[in-house]
């Protein structure tokens, strides 16, 4: 018996369908793609066919029309078997299509969203070599001359930005100074076909090895006013709001990975015998498994509830930070226990434990490090007032 968490029939059916797809289509290839550090166009096309690329976009843009929680369940189920494919989906929806849907003009939406729901990818270019946690230190600049903008600078670690099926990225740039002296930020839509932008794939990742990560270079990259996302000067606000929601998808990845690592550890512990007994019957292992099960149950309650808040349009800055922080640290602990329970085999590539162990680490760093999440929470609870 399990807690039903007030899921609708559709949500349960959707979870079961996605789980089957993940088990049968993604899981058999995950290890090999990770080993080769290869982005799979084939799996991405199959995920597009399933409707994962336009998860919460409405039907009129070719999307699947899901509620936010259903989308999060998809990410969770994919991460249960493979973080790389989950990263492609989470980044594309939350960071790629999300801002265009939330802030784009009608023309921008009609132009890009159907393509992005149908199989093309989109990147979200915020991080720079000198601006990660400190996004305010963005160095990429854009200046306007006779109705045309010229962008110069660079971005780093941008998910999905340099595949053959990437259409473009949303790029944050400094466009001037506000009356109060602070920097003015604006988001630009830059297509990969723009000769002023060069996209380079980054190789040699420890984790998410079959997810695409890129550097973007802008040298006198020209765009017109129509390529501004929303209003001039709104860039920073848009990025922060996008990250609030995006963090829920990282939380979902943590929850899914923890679930996968937990199941793998429990199975192994029940089969592996030492001193004539299954190792799951030794209290030190049993308690590890009980702790992870407890963490997963509680994390799932919290994350799903925050998704419902997000769907109602409530402000979730603190809640999404908590969900992301808790789920990513849970994934860390689950993967660690999973390897420990597997003993020597846990260190070998033959077992999923090893991949879980590497993949979880990004979750404590990407979309705001754990330190930054704690900063967000402590600020909101008034520690620094």
């Amino acid at each position: 018996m399990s807690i039903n968490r007030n899921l609708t029939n559709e949500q349960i059916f959707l979870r079961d369908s996605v789980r089957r797809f993940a088990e049968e289509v993604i899981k058999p290839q995950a290890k090999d793609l990770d080993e080769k550090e290869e982005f799979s166009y084939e799996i991405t096309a199959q995920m597009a066919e399933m409707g994962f690329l336009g998860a919460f976009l409405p039907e009129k843009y070719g999307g699947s029309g899901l509620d936010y929680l259903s989308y999060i369940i998809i990410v969770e189920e994919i991460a249960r078997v493979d973080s790389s494919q989950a990263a492609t989906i989470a980044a594309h929806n939350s960071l790629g299509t999300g801002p265009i849907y939330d802030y784009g003009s009608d023309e921008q939406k009609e132009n890009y969203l159907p393509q992005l729901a149908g199989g093309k990818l989109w990147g979200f270019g915020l991080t720079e070599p000198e601006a990660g946690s400190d996004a305010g230190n963005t160095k990429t600049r854009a200046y306007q001359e006779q109705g045309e903008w010229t962008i110069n600078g660079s971005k780093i670690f941008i998910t999905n930005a340099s595949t053959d099926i990437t259409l473009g990225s949303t790029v944050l740039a400094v466009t001037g100074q506000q009356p109060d002296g602070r920097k003015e930020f604006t988001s630009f839509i830059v297509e990969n076909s723009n000769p002023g932008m060069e996209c380079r794939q980054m190789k040699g990742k420890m984790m998410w090895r079959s997810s695409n990560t890129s550097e973007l270079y802008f040298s006198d990259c020209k765009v017109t006013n129509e390529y501004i996302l929303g209003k001039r000067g709104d860039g920073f606000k848009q990025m922060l709001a996008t990250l609030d929601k995006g963090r829920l998808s990282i939380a979902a990845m943590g929850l899914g990975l923890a679930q996968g690592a937990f199941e793998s550890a429990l199975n192994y512990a029940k089969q592996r015998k030492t001193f004539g007994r299954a190792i799951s019957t030794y209290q030190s292992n049993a308690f590890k498994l009980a702790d992870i099960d407890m963490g997963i149950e509680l994390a799932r309650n919290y994350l799903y509830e925050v998704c419902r808040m997000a769907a109602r349009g409530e402000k979730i800055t603190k809640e999404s930070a908590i969900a992301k922080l808790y789920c990513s640290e849970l994934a860390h602990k689950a993967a660690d226990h999973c390897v420990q329970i597997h003993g020597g085999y846990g260190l070998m590539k033959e077992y999923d434990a090893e991949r879980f162990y590497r993949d979880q680490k990004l979750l404590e760093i990407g979309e705001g490090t754990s330190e930054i999440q704690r900063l967000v929470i402590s600020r909101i609870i008034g520690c620094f007032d």
Partner: protein
Amino acid sequence: MNLLVCVSRVPDTATKIFVGPDGKTIDSKGVKYILNPYDEFALEEAIRLKEKNGGEVTALTVSADDATDILRNALAMGADSAIFIKAPAEPDSYQVAHNIANSVKDKNFDLIFFGRQSVDFDSFQIPSMVAELLNIPSVSVVSKLEVNGSKVIAERDIEGGKETVELSTPCAISAQKGLNEPRYPKLPDIMKAKKKPIEEVAFFQVDAAVEVISIALPVNKRVGKILGDSDSDINEIVRSLHEDAKVI
């Protein structure tokens, strides 16, 4: 082509089953119900026939519980509409078959599909009963199907081999695993299924042919016994080796 698929709502194969307080039914509290796995092959085959030849696929279920959830799942897979017949109490196979036959007798279905069995009560009876009541030919446990106009060629699994039979529409087919590879329902289709029609049809009263007297779970005996080296324990080991294990 007018196609009917009869589906049933069964406990998820991974669910832990408990017997209800009456000793005759399953305790449905906390049980997750799913579309009977064999029915997925039946649905997939009907949907493929529709995609090839045009027409409509209707899903139907008879159930004492609200089974609209699994009908929505069938609609998400690609059925166009559904019929739900709500039984006043857990029906036996005979009542289910009568209800199916009664509600579809005037609807001119070319093929009526079933799963080879429901994985809850495993009676294997309904496909043949429905065919008999409608006076149409039926073939069970079909693992390959070819439909050309009104000619139907079915391959079925038999002990140690395959049997190929020919029949003509209208007819009833029960699907075996391997008949096809059921599709993954796509997300937009899951959403669209919410808008497809489910018609509720009143239960056709007919007496049950069999009555369930009791159901019981298999007894899971504890295999190990821990004994020490006290005199009474040693006596117990000797007794047990003689009487329980009968090895001496």
